[in-house]
């Protein structure tokens, strides 16, 4: 359980040099849009930070978020921070199972009442508690229980933040997000499918440094990471503005690196740090590797239109609606025209020519 060593001790134990550590602090500062003058303060705070107790609950999820985090940049300062904060309870990563695991969770909750951080990945099924249980406890019950005495809750991944894939139409399990259930606690949504590892560690580093949660956007996401759209930071943006688009995945435009809008890129409606932070230790990111953004950090991205349809295209295939409406319009129009012609014809037939003489006679 909560040992008393500081993050600094732990990093030194793992052979992280002072230089490496400062480099991390500088990167974190710039990632969090803090001025470089803040670096010593961050370093000092992180050095001294004591290991907080973290309970990680996984509900309806695919383990992608945990994969994203544990496979990140290893062995880097990020992963060491993750080791350091390390988890009192995490189904996938902990050695204990069954009752022993639940006992560890309860002990951690008890010892760190009001101080532990609760991390959740996965959505919560409300349709039937039996859809997802852990040690016979429903996800809903476990979340409510564990959230009660948490200092803060971090919803990791789009499933925990917004409902994600389990919630996709027709949402068979009645999946909801953490914020749909817990309304009286600060919740930090770290969305993404999966979220960028550095964003998760960045949020944790912020918590360790300042003891507070970072500034959040309308979706409760840390503004520093989700403040700008993929589209506004995309290096292909000049092509979008010039009107140069790849039409297929292997045409000349695609080879020349033109904008992927017509191939379904959802960058314009997506707020995430991919374009600046990139993936796999800054190697690349989806748009750079030639595939449009799916919009994975936004609510309901599964239902927001085909992944390979342009963002402006209607969600359902409308060509049929238009064809039917056109046919109906034609039929009605032809009928109206028929009536009009008939009336005109009748009027013409009923027309009597009047001569000047006729008029004079009648007056």
């Amino acid at each position, binding site marked *: 359980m909560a040992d008393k060593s500081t993050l600094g001790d732990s990093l030194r134990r793992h052979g992280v040099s002072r230089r490496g550590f400062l480099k991390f602090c500088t990167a974190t500062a710039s990632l969090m849009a803090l001025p470089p003058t803040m670096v010593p303060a961050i370093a000092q705070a992180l050095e001294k930070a004591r290991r907080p107790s973290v309970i990680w609950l996984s509900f309806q999820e695919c383990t992608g978020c945990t994969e994203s985090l544990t496979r990140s940049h290893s062995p880097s300062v990020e992963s060491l921070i993750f080791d350091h904060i390390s988890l009192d309870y995490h189904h996938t990563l902990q050695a204990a199972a069954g009752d022993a695991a639940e006992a560890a969770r309860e002990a951690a909750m008890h010892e760190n009442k009001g101080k532990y951080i609760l991390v959740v990945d996965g959505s919560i099924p409300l349709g039937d508690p039996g859809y997802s249980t852990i040690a016979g406890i429903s996800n809903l019950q476990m979340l409510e229980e564990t959230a009660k005495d948490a200092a803060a809750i971090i919803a990791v991944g789009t499933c925990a*933040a*917004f*409902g994600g894939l389990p919630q996709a139409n027709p949402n068979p399990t009645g999946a909801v*997000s953490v*914020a*749909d259930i817990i309304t009286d606690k600060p919740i930090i*949504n770290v969305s993404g499918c999966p979220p960028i590892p550095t964003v998760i560690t960045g949020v944790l580093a912020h918590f360790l440094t300042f003891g507070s949660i970072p500034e959040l*956007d*309308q*979706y*409760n996401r840390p503004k520093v990471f989700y403040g700008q*759209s993929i589209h*506004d930071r995309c290096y292909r943006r000049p092509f*979008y*503005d*010039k*009107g140069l*688009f790849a039409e297929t995945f292997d045409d000349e435009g695609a080879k020349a690196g033109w904008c992927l*809008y*017509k191939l379904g890129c959802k960058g*314009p*409606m997506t*707020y995430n740090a991919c374009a600046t932070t990139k993936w796999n230790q800054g190697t690349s990111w989806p748009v750079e590797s030639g595939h449009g953004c799916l919009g994975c950090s*936004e*609510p*309901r991205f599964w*239902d*927001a*239109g085909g992944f390979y*349809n*342009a*963002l*402006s*295209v*209607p*969600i*359902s295939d*409308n*060509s049929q*609606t*238009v064809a*039917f*409406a*056109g046919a*109906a*319009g*034609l039929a*009605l*129009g*032809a009928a*109206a*025209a028929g009536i*009009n*012609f008939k009336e*005109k014809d009748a009027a*013409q037939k009923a027309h009597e020519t009047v001569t000047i003489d006729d008029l004079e006679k009648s007056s």
Partner: protein
Amino acid sequence: MNEPMDFLIWTKGTAFNIAVTIFVIGVILRLFEVISLGRKQNLAEARGTEFGPGMKTILTRSIPDLGTFRRQPLTVVTGYMFHIGLFISLFLFVPHIELFRATFGISWPGLPTPIVDAAAVLAIVGLLAGLWHRIMNPVMQKITTWEDWLVWALTFLPILTGYLAYHRLVNPYPVILGLHILSVEALMIAFPFTKLMHTFTVFLSRWYNGAMNGRRGVES
């Protein structure tokens, strides 16, 4: 938390289906009606031809005439600003072209976004100036009906919301994009039943005017 996106998905799904159905049926029906009714038969002896003057009028009425310009410069200038601005931002913005391609199966090349952006500003300024003119000018006041206000608002909102969405001036983004789409849907629904129909009949009615005058042997 998901409401903005729920709203956007609704405008891009159900609402769009309804709007496009009403629009397509309505426009075709109205066109059939207008064309099949034609004009009242003119029983007077013809003093000239119809076709030539009709075609000529399509052209002449599309170019501002000096007399009108002197009397009502604002009407002419704002009218052109707005129509050109609207045309460019509606038909030459690539996301819109992709929508036309998906809905009606036809597409054409677009323009770079800074040009479209400028065109949208032109349209907004034109519409606002037109509104100001409509409110301030005593003659305009007299001939303005409620339909004119409605049509003005229905035209203005899509351009305004489109501009706000493009520049991300409203958060969260799905709200303003959804409002943009919704305002266009309102426009589409009202379209066949208001004077907005002139979009489809403008050249036809210019031809009729020219043809009628030509037949009477008058210049138009």
